[in-house]
């Protein structure tokens, strides 16, 4: 039993590894996307500098910290591959019916591949990306390397959770013929409640409270808050516990939703 589990884990590792290699192999694509991401991060930096310059609001954080925050949240969006599109394509091309009969769970396979590709991205974004941002902002966040490292660590974990929600979006293609509609909604929730544009502590109280009770909290604001100064909000331990909690819920949700939709597929005969 245990042996079987390990064997399956190994298979998933192989999927992730293959996807990692494949991703690294497409270096032009990797670089191009990276350059775009860096540009969008710089736009964020300028956005916050503008706001600080014109003194519209009293920022409760140093402006450089907010710039770091904004760059990390933007980077998070670029870190994971667009997994829902691969699933959407499998559904539309009908390939999913072949993939379903494999001994390994289709969804586990795709998520592993996503993690592989994400790791390839992380290799570049966490080194060259962080260097670009540091250079452009001109300083480290006030929490220093420790804060930055903590944020990056949790962003990586949060992105795995993000991949799972992408998988859920992908599966909706079985139902809507296209995954994009559902994904866009989810993505907007992530952007708004996750706090892509501003730290969610700046939101009205009720919106902040709402955001705190969603899984997107541990994908974006939760991890990225560690560049905004210590003792702002949660401790790393709290975020870790919250992540585990949402992993459990999400895996359950994904499994249930996947089975429901696959049953539908079998009824329709693909």
């Amino acid at each position: 039993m245990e042996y079987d589990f390990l064997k399956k884990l190994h298979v998933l590792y192989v999927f992730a590894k293959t996807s990692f290699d494949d991703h690294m192999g497409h270096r032009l694509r990797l670089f191009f996307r990276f350059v775009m991401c860096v540009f969008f991060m710089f736009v964020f930096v300028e956005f916050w500098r503008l706001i600080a310059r014109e003194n519209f609001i009293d920022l409760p954080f140093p402006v450089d910290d907010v710039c770091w925050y904004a760059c990390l949240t933007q980077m998070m969006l670029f870190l994971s591959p667009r997994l829902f599109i691969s699933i959407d394509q499998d559904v539309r091309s009908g390939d999913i019916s072949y993939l379903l009969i494999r001994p390994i769970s289709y969804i586990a396979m795709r998520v592993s591949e996503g993690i592989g590709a994400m790791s390839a991205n992380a290799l570049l974004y966490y080194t060259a990306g962080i260097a670009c941002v540091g250079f452009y902002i001109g300083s480290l966040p006030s929490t220093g390397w420790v804060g930055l490292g903590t944020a990056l660590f949790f962003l990586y974990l949060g992105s795995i959770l993000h991949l799972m929600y992408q998988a859920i979006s992908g599966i909706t293609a079985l139902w809507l013929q296209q995954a994009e509609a559902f994904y866009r909604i989810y993505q907007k929730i992530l952007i708004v409640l996750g706090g892509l544009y501003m730290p969610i502590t700046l939101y009205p109280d009720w919106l902040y409270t709402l955001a705190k009770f969603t899984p997107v909290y541990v994908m974006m604001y939760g991890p990225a808050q560690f560049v905004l100064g210590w003792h702002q909000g949660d401790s790393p331990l709290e975020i870790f516990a919250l992540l585990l909690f949402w992993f459990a819920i999400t895996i359950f949700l994904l499994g249930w939703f996947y089975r429901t939709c696959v049953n539908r597929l079998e009824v329709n005969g693909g």
Partner: protein
Amino acid sequence: MSAITVQNLSKNFRVKKQVPGFSGTVKSFFKPDWHEVSALEDVSFSIGRGERVAFIGPNGAGKSTTIKILSGILNPSTGSVEVAGLTPWEERQKLSYEIGTVFGQRSQLWYHLPARDSFKLLSSAYGLDKNTYTDRLSQLTEAFDIKDLLDKPVRQMSLGQRMRCEVVASFLHKPAILFLDEPTVGLDVSAKSVIRDLVYETSVEDGTTILLTSHDTGDMERVCDRVILIDQGQIVIDAPVSKLRSSYISRKIITLHMSVADMPFKMQGVEIAEKAPHKMVLNVDTSQQNVSAVIEKTLSLASMRDISIEDPPMEDVLRSIYKSGQG
């Protein structure tokens, strides 16, 4: 008068070499190893009007590359080509009225709509007037027996049905030349036969020149009069199908599933290629032995659950050609 003339055609591609292992991945990330691969080397042939030619060879031989150059999709590296008097990659639009294409792997039909809608769109693309279109469609509908399929969304069709509609779509504007790239790939035996017969009959009726690529010897035997065998980018053989058949495809493969575990079998010109409980694969030399005689004999020995007769795979044909020193 030739429909297609190809002279000294060559085609090279640049490909990246894959290096195994993590260090290989990182290394090739910083310094990829490119090298040139030649897909076609100095190929020349010509095809007369109304001729039906099979372009056969193993996977990666250069068949699809050739057909894509002839239909104007790809540019060659060197060489000259004339199709219906035009240079394909330079006069693509003019050429499109003269040719039809069927790509086994790509569809020209709209997935969610009935085939009829796609046909209508194509008639508008080729500027057919309403009467011509209606006549042509009803003629093809009858020939290809797709009356019941016309109003069925393409996504609900079987692959064989879809392929029939694809071929109709390509014949719609009555092209002088039809290119078929692996038209029977993925089809079952009976669907394959249907497609082959229909392409043959329609091309005879319309006087269409046919160039068909396949790695299935059956496609060539049923549809074509002439065969060009290509391997590793070079023409190995250019001969009438009848010659190829008599010289190299003098074998059939019979697979028997018997109700008894074993049977004593021996016959002149027949070799037992494989033997297992309840199963026997026979290799029949048709120059020495008639296939029906072999079947008759096996039936007299034991009752059968299943019998199938197949052409030898392309690889075997190639092997026997090379063995005879022709290559």
